[in-house]
């Protein structure tokens, strides 16, 4: 297996074995969340730039926590305080950040493709923390990790996604990841939020169907992904909160249509009483807090992966080990049985 990705911009191009590898690499970091002493010195001296051109609380804190638990420092750029308000271009802003010599850039932006654009102009690794309605790869990974932990596997599951599918990068990252493991998707929400084009967003052959009655959509589900009703990204024609609750809210009665062991994910922050009832949000099938804990582990794995080691020779630190000359700096802990 060759891990050669320098950036993490999207899950769509990654094959199943690399996605599995990323999930596996998150496991040691899940263990660290349970340690009494959670801080490592692994990335001591490294700096992670967090550039959130669009508001975010949990993702920014999660990446910041991941960086600090690895011993890295962070630089923070936030939308309101940034020079973007003073008319600076995106490229000028990231070049300015880059000139302060961070080792990695984590960025969120309201425009789809923004992270990709920036990655083409910077030499440091770029992690997409959400770009418009395109992807949110670390969220897709932490969702898959949560599902795998609870259900034992991410293969061949019935996944029902509820809400504003059209504007959801979380839904897209989930479909791109889980679709490679044989999952089937049922999308459900008000018709204007679930346009026909969504049936084609997966790789060829990934079964995606649209259903407009929530009871039918939940039938036989293993995983229910509830999306937030995103007031900041809503366009006309809209739907009133009352109508949404009536037609699409996940409540205990509707949830009984899903398999008895079905689990519920929500990327947060939740609008309790709108897309999900408190009873369901706090029930034993809900994984929302595990998602948050796993988010730190996944992001630690990504930062470790992209910023440890050197990529100067073009090979990724995670490429299979080749014994190098006179490697005496440690007692040679690697599986290739290198020089000793």
């Amino acid at each position: 297996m060759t891990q050669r990705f320098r950036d993490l911009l999207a899950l769509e191009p990654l094959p199943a074995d690399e996605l599995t590898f990323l999930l596996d690499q998150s496991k040691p970091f899940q263990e660290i969340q349970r340690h009494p002493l959670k801080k490592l010195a692994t990335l001591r001296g490294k700096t992670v730039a967090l550039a959130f051109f669009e508001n975010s609380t949990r993702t920014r804190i999660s990446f910041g926590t991941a960086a600090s638990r690895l011993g890295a420092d962070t630089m923070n750029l936030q939308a309101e305080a940034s020079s973007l308000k003073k008319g600076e271009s995106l490229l000028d802003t990231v070049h300015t950040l880059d000139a302060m010599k961070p080792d990695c850039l984590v960025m969120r932006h309201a425009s789809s493709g923004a992270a990709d654009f920036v990655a083409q102009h910077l030499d440091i690794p770029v992690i997409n923390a959400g770009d418009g309605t395109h992807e949110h790869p670390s969220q897709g990974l932490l969702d898959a990790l949560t599902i795998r932990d609870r259900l034992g596997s991410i293969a061949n599951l019935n996944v029902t996604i509820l809400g504003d599918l059209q504007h959801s990068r979380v839904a897209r990252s989930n479909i791109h990841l889980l679709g490679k493991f044989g999952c089937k998707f049922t999308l459900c929400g008000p018709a204007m939020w679930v346009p026909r084009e969504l049936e084609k967003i997966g790789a060829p052959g990934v079964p995606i169907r649209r259903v407009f009655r929530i009871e039918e959509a939940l039938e036989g589900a293993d995983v229910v992904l509830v999306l937030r009703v995103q007031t900041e990204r809503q366009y006309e024609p809209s739907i009133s909160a009352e109508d949404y609750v009536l037609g699409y809210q996940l409540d205990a009665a509707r949830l009984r249509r899903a398999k008895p062991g079905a689990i519920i994910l929500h990327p947060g922050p939740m609008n309790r009483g709108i897309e999900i009832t408190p009873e369901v949000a706090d029930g034993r099938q809900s994984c929302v807090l595990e998602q948050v804990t796993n988010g730190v582990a996944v992001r630690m794995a990504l930062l470790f992966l992209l910023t440890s080691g050197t990529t100067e020779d073009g090979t990724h630190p995670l490429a299979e080990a080749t014994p190098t000359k006179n490697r005496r700096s440690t007692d040679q802990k690697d599986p290739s049985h290198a020089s000793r």
Partner: protein
Amino acid sequence: MRIVEKTQLMSAPEIDRTLQRLAHEIVEKSGGTKNLALIGIVRRGVPLAQRIAQAMRGIDGVDVPVGTLDITLYRDDLSKVAPQAVLRSSDIPFGVDNMDLVLVDDVLYTGRTIRAAMNGLFDLGRPKRVSLCVLIERGHREMPIEAQYVGRSVQTSDTEIIEVRLREIDKEERVVLVDRVE
């Protein structure tokens, strides 16, 4: 550059006898197996620790807990070694506070692995005592670290490599000394 096998240091039965002796030594010096636990360092320390624990069962009739520790995150050279930093899971299914821990590894060389392992252990708690058991000790230390339990000490030069091959990982069982020849 070629790698040439110079000599065999241990055969399979010799490895087995050595581990039996090490198990006896650890139990003797620890005054029994109370509060004793073994921590195998990934990768080849792990099967060695499991085999020592098995030998201890024969001595004391007690199951000594065995944990595994991956030291990758604690290495001091992550940004220098370009190749490979695949993480494996550490699994220490017991509290380390006030325990009498024995780190187990295949070869003691520079001492940096052990330095990293101790950092990892102390993130988990405060053991009462930590000692070190290795199958082979080969000199060339770069840290003030020594092993309390040693299978065999071997004089080596800088260019030589000691390969411990264990059936659980390498499908064969022996210890060989190899050399790099220009």
